[in-house]
């Protein structure tokens, strides 16, 4: 059986996981929005730069991004604490995916909607926030939440730079108890508890957005 110390350690690990995930959502969301907007920009150079960013970030495993943020920057003389480096890596990582998902949503809003908004003299920003985003949200919500759930679980890669998250702690325990099933089932349950509210919230949001459709 697991000792109370071990359970406590797992819970602390879960806290790190939650913290990192929150940083990823907020930071990644903000930069992701920037990515989405620049990806559909009228300016070719902006578009291409943004595409390059997405291509490179999506193309490298998060594990390696974590190591680059912690050890790579250190080689260059910038020493970040492990948690800060993990935050940096996961924000960059999440921003590329959020950006791509949202770009897809933006593109599905019919051209005529952009035109109608333009004819009402709405500025670019107003048009984007008032007309395009609400309609893009509907199509983007499921993949966004799907990705957020993956982010929660992928935060475990931060253990490679010394952040003792839930997965890491469970492995640590398993490495000395050699009874994987009870640890892992508990860990799966903890992840479920962390992720399911996201899925539930997504369902609510979709229902609300559905009011004006179909």
């Amino acid at each position, binding site marked *: 059986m697991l000792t109370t110390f071990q359970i406590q350690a797992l819970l602390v690990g879960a806290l790190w996981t939650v913290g990192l995930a929150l940083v990823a959502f907020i930071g990644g969301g903000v930069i992701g929005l920037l990515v989405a907007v620049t990806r559909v920009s009228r300016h070719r150079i902006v578009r291409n730069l943004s595409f390059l960013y997405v*291509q*490179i970030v*999506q*193309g*490298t*495993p*998060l*594990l*390696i991004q974590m*190591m*680059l943020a912690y*050890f*790579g920057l250190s*080689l*260059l*003389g910038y020493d970040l604490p492990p948690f800060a480096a993990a935050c940096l890596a996961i924000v960059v990582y999440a921003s590329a*995916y959020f950006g*791509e*998902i949202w*770009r*897809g949503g933006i*593109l*599905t809003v019919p*051209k005529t909607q952009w035109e109608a908004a333009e004819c009402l003299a709405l500025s670019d920003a107003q048009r984007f926030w008032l007309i395009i985003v609400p309609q893009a949200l*509907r*199509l*983007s*919500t*499921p*993949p966004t*939440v*799907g*990705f957020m*759930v*993956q982010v929660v*679980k992928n935060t*475990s890669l931060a253990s490679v730079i010394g952040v003792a998250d839930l*997965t890491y702690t469970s492995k640590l325990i398993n490495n000395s108890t050699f009874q*994987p*099933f009870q640890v*892992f*089932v508990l*860990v*799966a349950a903890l*992840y*479920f508890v*962390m*992720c*399911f509210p996201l*899925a539930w919230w997504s369902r609510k949001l979709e229902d609300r957005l559905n009011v004006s459709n*179909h």
Partner: protein
Amino acid sequence: MAYQFDFSFLSEYWPELLRGLWLTLKMSVLTIVLGFLVGTVLAIGRTAHSAWVRRACGVYVEVIRNTPLLIQMFLIYFGLASLGLKLGANFCAILSIVINISAYTCEIMRAGIESIRKGQLEAAQCLGLSRLQTLAAVVLPPATERVYPALTSQFILIMLTTSVVSQISAEELTSIAARIDSITFRSFEIYLVVALLYILLAVAVRGTFWLIARLVFPRLRRLGTPL
């Protein structure tokens, strides 16, 4: 920079890296294709008339999406073996990734399916198309086209995800790299090389998806406008 980079190990180990790259590629293709198929079927299930089918697919999606792939994989690989059912590591790896990824694909495809206007379904119905035919001809093609960017991202993510199978002994790119690392201790160099290889793979995946889009969405090819 104090650190002296030394890539000389590559001359000895590049065939191994290529072997790992090849397995990663094979597993990616297989899991992407199967994951897309199963995910699409699930998405159809989630929009089915029958509340039971909808609910069953929903529970599957939520349970799978909200628990870690690693643990799902352990349960399949070790759990089944404990019960006496010994399946190969590669098979278990692919099985668990497909199970996992189908849940995500399902949610993306569902969004696409639900974005099809009711008028389209009514038009198909009035032409006498069955539900299945409507799905195949009227719903799925534009739905897929609409969520194509999200799908592409998700599939690149699968390609990267295949690295977890190193945990259960599959010798793909990451695990080969880890072994070379432990022999030579040239961690920075090996991970830089691996990062580059993954970027190349991602470019290849994206390029392939772009080509497939040109192929299966003739409208997109002709007009260049998203649906």
